[in-house]
């Protein structure tokens, strides 16, 4: 059944190569009533978003929270890839790091990160996410409608069929 997804819960994609921190951030986010998908690398994050397929957005992700220090693709690398992508650049990105390095923090904020959290991340930090999600909501709804109509004419047709009386 193809219906517009109800936005009762925001969906956060969490990225961290450490199992303990993934478990922690997942719990923090779930406690704050977010739906969570946790992955262990930037590559997996991009795969989840569907970026690798050069496709339109496969899933609705409302915010990405990522560790900075990860092997291969750092959190900063992931941030830049998101911001340089036409499909995903409007998704707010938050960076976490255990190191308090001002130049790193500035670089991330200048690179487009909404917030920079020092680890260990706490509930008070997660509470700061909501405003970034709230202001995007209307943009996401408009974008999704536009995308559905351009990219998936079949889906649109199915929806119209359901609406038809008879």
């Amino acid at each position, binding site marked *: 059944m193809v219906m517009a997804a109800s936005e009762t819960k925001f969906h956060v994609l969490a990225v961290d190569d450490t199992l*303990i921190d993934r478990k922690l951030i997942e719990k923090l986010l779930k406690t704050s009533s977010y739906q969570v998908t946790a992955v262990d690398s930037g590559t997996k994050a991009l795969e989840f978003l569907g970026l690798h397929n050069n496709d339109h957005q496969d899933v609705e992700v409302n915010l990405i929270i990522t560790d900075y220090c990860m092997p291969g693709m750092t959190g900063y690398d992931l941030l830049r890839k998101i911001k340089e992508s036409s499909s995903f650049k409007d998704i707010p990105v938050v960076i976490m790091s255990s190191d308090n390095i001002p130049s790193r923090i500035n670089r991330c904020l200048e690179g487009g990160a909404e917030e920079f959290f020092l*680890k260990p991340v706490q509930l008070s930090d997660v509470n700061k996410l909501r405003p970034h999600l709230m202001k995007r909501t209307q943009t996401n709804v408009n974008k999704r409608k536009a995308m559905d109509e351009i990219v998936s004419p079949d889906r649109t047709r199915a929806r119209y069929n359901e609406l038809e009386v008879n």
Partner: protein
Amino acid sequence: MDLVQLQRQFVDYRTSLYHEGFLDEQFTQLQELQDENNPDFVVEVVSLFFEDSERLLNELARALEQQSIDYKRIDAHVHQLKGSSSSIGAQRVQKVCIAFRNYCEEQNVEGCLNCLQQVRHEYSLVKTKLESLFQLEQQILTAGGSIPM
């Protein structure tokens, strides 16, 4: 020992762990995140910390035995250990890791070996203490009581 005594012993023990610097505020955060949906959350996270630490300590020992020491690799392991100890609130372990990283930067092998010994010691202490704490919790639960916050 009756339930009230057990609960008092638990609270006193837990308080002492904070006073002696074994645990910090982050451990409290973990306890606050635990709920009926995830009643074993703290034990699960701490168990991950134990597994992770043991692996890292072994890697560190091995790395420091090498003819030609790879300080970058050692620093990477210590960074991980510092991160996980900080995530569960194991303050004394975290503090040794900070000193350890400084010795890595200086490429000071003596300093590193000393720190390895120290961090092993602190890890072993906090592991014993957390296991005792969890045991007390279990006794309270078995006696039909609830864990004081």
